[in-house]
């Protein structure tokens, strides 16, 4: 049984297509993330699941129950809000107890459940505080405890960490993940922070302009992006558009840009006259000589030392590419404007169709 099934959901706001043709299946206990830039429809999708807005088309099932016409207050989903939405006129205890009281549970049970929820977010002893005496992080813990306390069928997170500072954000995301795993509540998490999504999720759906671009495990999303949008949005990537030339034999074709000539697999390129070659900064291998095939030469522009890596910006045929050097030492950083020669192992190179943006070599899938 799927915890959540979304079939062909569409939603328009006037002329704007907020959601088009959304299909999703989320497993019980899964931590599922909707990732995308602002305005991509991720929050709309979350609010549609919660029942705050109604889809124009399509069906939503929670645990095999069709909930299209179930009002928000009967869906038994619990949301953790971006701006906390902690009731300012209630104590921490009353906030967490709110949903339990609505469910008319006996007093002792409520007290017990509130206690458990507060313990799991490390807020024991805060019961009688009012929200104005809490920090942002503590308020969000109250929000989390309040949502958990009702033991919902699904927990919904609407960018819950975006109002917190960087250090707290990292602490809190670990905590959310731990709490979710220990309770095993199915969770849908909305964020625009790709790093957060990679760390926290079992699976991720990357969204753009109301459409799902790719669904997959964090590894797949990062290592195996299906199109240029996903490749660009998740992590840093270099992209060069090269002109395709004649066959280079052995199933390869020449692709060139200025002085660079690379050999790329010919499969799937028959209809194309150019191609996007993409690779991540950490996959680059620096080489000493330009003799080897498939090398790229550029001039070093800037060096940013980031501790575990030194990030080079290299001018290649007028385009700035980023390459990382691991375990850098000051003595082996080349001077600015010097020539840098590098290559990328074939298995780390991603090829895209510059017109459709789709991955090549994955053609059978799309």
């Amino acid at each position: 049984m799927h915890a959540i099934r979304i079939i062909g959901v569409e939603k328009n706001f006037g002329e704007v297509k907020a959601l088009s043709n959304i299909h999703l299946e989320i497993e019980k206990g899964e931590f599922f993330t909707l990732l995308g830039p602002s305005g991509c429809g991720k929050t709309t999708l979350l609010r549609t699941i919660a029942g705050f807005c109604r889809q124009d088309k399509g069906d939503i099932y929670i645990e095999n129950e069709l909930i299209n016409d179930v009002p928000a207050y009967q869906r038994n989903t619990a949301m953790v809000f971006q701006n906390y939405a902690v009731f300012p006129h209630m104590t921490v205890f009353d906030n967490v107890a709110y949903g339990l009281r609505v469910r008319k549970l006996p007093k002792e049970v409520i007290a017990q459940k509130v206690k458990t929820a507060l313990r799991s977010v490390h807020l024991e002893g805060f019961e009688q505080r009012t929200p104005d005496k809490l920090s942002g992080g503590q308020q969000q813990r109250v929000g989390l405890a309040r949502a958990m306390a009702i033991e919902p069928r699904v927990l919904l997170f609407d960018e819950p960490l975006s109002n917190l500072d960087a250090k707290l954000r990292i602490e809190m995301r670990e905590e959310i993940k731990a709490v979710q795993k220990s309770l095993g509540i199915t969770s849908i998490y909305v964020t625009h922070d790709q790093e957060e999504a990679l760390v926290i999720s079992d699976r991720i759906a990357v969204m753009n302009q109301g459409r799902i671009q790719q669904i997959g495990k964090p590894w797949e999303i990062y290592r195996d992006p299906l199109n240029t949008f996903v490749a660009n949005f998740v992590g840093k990537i270099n992209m060069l558009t090269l002109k395709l030339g004649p066959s280079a034999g052995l199933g390869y074709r020449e692709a060139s840009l200025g002085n660079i000539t690379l050999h790329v697999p010919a499969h799937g390129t028959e209809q194309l006259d150019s191609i996007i070659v993409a690779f991540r900064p950490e996959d680059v291998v620096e080489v000493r000589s330009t003799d080897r095939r498939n090398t790229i030469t550029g001039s070093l522009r800037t060096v940013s030392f980031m501790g575990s890596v030194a990030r080079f910006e290299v001018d290649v045929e007028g385009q700035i590419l980023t390459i990382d050097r691991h375990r850098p030492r000051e003595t082996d950083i080349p001077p600015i404007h010097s020539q840098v020669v590098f290559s990328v192992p074939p298995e780390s190179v991603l090829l895209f169709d510059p017109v459709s943006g789709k991955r090549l070599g994955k053609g059978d899938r799309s």
Partner: protein
Amino acid sequence: MSGKIRRADVWTLVTFAGFAIVVVFLIYPLFDIFRYSFIDKDSGEVSLANWIQFFSKKYYLRAFTNSLFIAIATTFFSMVLGIPLAFFTTRYRIAGSTFLTTLSVLALLSPTFIGAYSWITMLGKNGFLRTMFQSIGVTLPQIYGPLGIILADTLQYYPFISLMTAGALMTIDRSLEEASENLGARPRRIFFDVTLPMVLPSVTGGALIVFMMSLSNFGTPMIIGGNFLVLPTLAYNLFTSEISETPGMASTVSIILMLCASIVIVLQQWLASRRKYASMLVNRPVVKRLKGIRSLVAHALCYGIVFLSTLPLAVIVYYSFRKTSGPVFKSGFSLDSYRQIFFDVPKTVTNSFLYSLAAVLLIAIVGTLLGFIIARKKSGVVKVLDSLLMIPYMVPGTVLGIGFIVAFNRPPIYLTGTAIIIILTYFIRRLPYSVRSAASILKQIDPALEEAGINLGSPPGRTFRTITLPLMQGGIISGAIMSWVTSMNELSASILLYVGQTMTMPIKIYLLVVDGFFGTASAMSTILLVVTGVSMYIVNKYFSKGSETFVSA
């Protein structure tokens, strides 16, 4: 599904009721005034006679220029007093500055006519200050006429400017001034380049309110103006003398007064809609401690301004305890004046309390419901209602009073001489304030809070009751108390509408002053002052987030 439809119907009903109120109690009477202004009173024919007369006779035109003169002068002097007071109390440590603010708010909220007649007791024909100075050979000018109006108006209304400016000064992020200093600006330069531009919207906003208040003020010029007529008193005089005929000329004057007020309101709205400098308030401005002579001068200035504005109130309270014999004050103290009120005119007191209470209940309920619609239901119809609800801002009390008489002394709605008509004027005059404040409170309540309630399983009705309403409560109550104060002190409309049975305290005070019974008038004014002060204290203590509540609510 059925629940959804029923809910929709409730709000449609409220919207419809809102329109009904506006049409029956605003548009209908105002249209009547408009109509009468085009009826020649001799022939009863439709004509432009009234309008031609207004613009050709010096008598009428002078009231117009007088009104503008008074409003401009009052605004100017209010700024002269208000801006320095705001600057000193927010930027320098002034001992007892909270106390000063409280006093100036009391002066602001006290009935307008009390200040006016208090100045008469001090600087009138037989005023005690005047006789005092006379005895040492100094002849002070008499207070009747424009001088008195400007004096009384300025000392009543300057807090609008000082409070709004102080509010703005306190919310300027200190970093902005520091940035200016850091870039090499000297203190004077910082003030003119950064501080002043940041508070200018608030200063002009306050100035326009003062202009508007002074333009439509009826009580002060009526009591202290003498032969110096302004538009509201002209309209009142014309109306009371035209009572047997069609009120053509009074209507024309009313329309002109309303046009002037509308222009000011439109200006104010335009100004308010322009960008305000909202700040994150990371760094509050520093309050500097002055030393020696500078500190002395600053204190003298602040206390001087505020004490001058509360002096009339103190004088009233003092006179209320003086021994009297009829209209004459005798030496010694007594409670005679109060005894007189409770034996002779207790009905006046109960009327005031009852009518205001009834009006406040109406205002709070209707205002909250309409405010909810305006904040949460966004449709074209609601927008129209929202702008129609602005109209009472532009209708001076005198105009509304005249409109109510002409419209409601004939079928289909006959209300002349009833208590209802007075309660309705209170209601209509305060309604836009209460709608606005309810709407703005709702806008400050994050919709996510209501969503959180619903999301946790609470149905919409329960969510409104357990979350929205408790969060609105403070705002509704403090708004209601402000309505209560203004209703208790209302004179300009009710003086046209009362009959013997429905007389209220402000009307009685006015009549007592005219007849020279200063003792009883003082005692009654003191009662109003105490009511005002206590209400203010309650708002301040339990509901307010600063003195700005009093100028915005």
